[in-house]
């Protein structure tokens, strides 16, 4: 239907051809946006101030770790190094002493790796199955156990430290890495179970029903239907557990032997093993090294981390 065929349409066109002449005084068209209103300045100003509060310690850590001790004594902790030295990093990584062991954090790093990997895998496996059973295979009392589990997340660890020593002794795992792994599995269980429970209950229940009609059993549904579609939540759980277990200090110090101390304990040892003058640059390098793994994971995972903690915390 072409416009020209209809006089009415032609009239419409002639109206649209003459808008300029018809404008009255006053605002017209797109409202101007002031790029920097007072409000915007306040918003960005506020954010920048907070960013400074959050970033300064990181800045100070990095700067201090790159300075030599004489420069630290002279100068300003915020100032960048005049002469960059990586000596503190080398020392923190491989030379700093605790007692007779002068292999720095490197040993703690590998210990942490050896603890984090099995603990993360196991705790997530257990918690994922828990969440699945809680959502899809409720049984009498399952909610009660879950409630206890969530209560458990808030019980101060101090209440349970000693009896756990006894439990670990009874099952013969005291002092072994597996004992520590077990402790991490236990204490990671509440929050990760909650995470998976929330995730699985957000999936359409029909999917589970369809899989049952299709003849899949408890493990079949879990492994072949639910797990493949739960990659995001698994990623989130891995991030939470790796950072959480990596950062643990209390369990690491109590339930392991010195030769398998995780990195945080090693860090505390190095920082507190004062031999003569405190070497702040080495301490800072050690601190950064210890924080590097969780920080890397954090920066790489970006939104997933945020989504994970929000998912774990807001619901539930």
């Amino acid at each position, binding site marked *: 239907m072409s416009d020209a065929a209809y006089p009415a349409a032609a009239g419409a066109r002639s109206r649209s051809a003459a808008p300029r002449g018809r404008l009255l005084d006053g605002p017209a068209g797109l409202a101007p946006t002031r790029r920097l209103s007072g409000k915007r300045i306040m918003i960005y100003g506020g954010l920048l101030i907070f960013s400074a509060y959050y970033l300064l310690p990181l800045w100070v850590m990095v700067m201090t770790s790159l300075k030599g001790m004489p420069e630290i004594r002279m100068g300003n902790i915020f100032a960048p190094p005049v002469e960059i030295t990586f000596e503190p990093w080398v020392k923190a990584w491989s030379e700093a002493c605790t007692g007779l062991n002068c292999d720095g954090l490197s040993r703690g790093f590998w210990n942490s790796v050896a603890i984090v990997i099995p603990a993360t895998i196991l705790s997530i496996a257990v918690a994922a199955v828990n969440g699945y059973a809680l959502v899809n295979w409720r049984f009498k009392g399952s909610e009660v156990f879950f409630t206890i589990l969530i209560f458990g997340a808030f019980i101060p660890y101090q209440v349970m430290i*000693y009896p756990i020593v006894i439990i670990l002794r009874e099952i013969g795992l005291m*002092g072994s890495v597996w004992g520590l792994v077990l402790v991490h599995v236990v204490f990671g269980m509440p929050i990760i179970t909650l995470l998976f429970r929330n995730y699985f209950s957000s999936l359409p229940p029909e999917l589970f029903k369809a899989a049952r009609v299709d003849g899949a059993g408890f493990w079949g549904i879990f492994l072949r239907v639910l797990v493949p579609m739960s990659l995001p939540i698994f990623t989130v759980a891995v991030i939470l557990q790796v950072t959480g277990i990596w950062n643990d200090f209390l369990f690491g110090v109590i*339930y392991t032997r010195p030769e398998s101390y995780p990195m945080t304990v090693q860090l505390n*040892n190095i920082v*507190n*093993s004062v*031999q*003569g003058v*405190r070497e702040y640059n080495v301490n800072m390098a050690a601190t950064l090294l210890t924080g590097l793994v969780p920080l890397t994971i954090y920066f790489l995972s970006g939104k997933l981390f945020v989504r994970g903690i929000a998912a774990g915390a807001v619901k539930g």
Partner: protein
Amino acid sequence: MQNISMRRLLAGAALTILPFGAMAADLEVTHWWTSGGEAAAVQELARIFEEQTEHSWVDGAIAGSGSTARPIMVSRIIGGDPMGATQFNHGLQAQELVEAGLMQDLTEVAEANGWRDSINPVSLLDACTFEGRVYCAPLNIHSPQWMWTSLAAFEKAGIEPATNWEELKAAAPALREAGILPLAQGMQGWQTALLLYAMISGIGGADFYNQVFAERNEDALNSDTLKNIFAEYAIARDLASGGNLSDWNMATNRIIEGTAAAQVMGDWAQGEFALAGKTAGTDYGCHIGLGGEPVIATGGDAIYFPVNDDEAVTEAQRALAQVILSEEAQVAFNAAKGSLPVRGDIDLAEVNECTQAGLETLKAGNTIPTIDLVMSSDSRGQIEDLTAEFFGSSLSAEDAHARFVQIVQSEM
């Protein structure tokens, strides 16, 4: 089945053929000796152990202090994952572990090596003995009652170095004038408590110290002497104000640098002086009992050997116990750490004047038991809390005294 019994047979044969104790073991030794001088001393002990036996020393240092390390040690022993050997301040600390049968009986080693004859004072061995059996090997004697002074600091202030508590008090204004901290005092509970013990024995004397801690004599506890000591203790708090120190060796470092005049600390401070290349008499001064009554506490460190089910480790434990009391180890360890040997039959070839003074005091028998020998960890912890609170607040000397008496009296 057959395999197992064959293996056992072979193992048995090996045992009989090989000389006794030939199974080399890794012996994990936990301790909290992590400062410079301490680490050097451990280094010596480990070296001698590895040289004299076929076993290896696995170092299990735990940084911080005894209060950080002890929980870890205790939980491991209780948790059935014992280390090969562990440092404890001997005395009541480990008694319950011994009672529970968690500690190796060393009586045979002790008798074979004549510990009872060589250890001086013999009370050190008594502290290791429970119901007639020996359960630990004393390693060194520590006397906490020393006042260390920086001669450079006094020189800078243009006054004579203080040789006792009274002189230090008198010198304080001049020192402050010169920007020097009169008393370098770490703010941790065990350090503030150490100062109190040193003042009680140094100002009150050995008998008074015993009356207070060992006998818990009511008259002594409520005496003017003790009240006066608490008043002096409050003065010490003033002398230390502005120091902002926490670790003991940070405080010792101030003496080494000459930015503080005095520190009351145990003889292990000498290890730091030695490491910094300072010489007694020319760089720093030492004054037993704060320059008052020269008494020395015969406590110190002892090594305990938790029971374990590995024969090779048990063997290594006995070997270490033997090494600890050997002359070579006693000399090397104590020289590095700045403490005194537990054997009276050793001639320390070249000891500085401070160690010499300590040895003489020891020989003269001017000894008092360390706090660990007479008080439970519980009470000691409470005293540490009290003194830490005292130093970190404006708690009055009277109140501190009253609470101190209460803690001591509640000791069972």
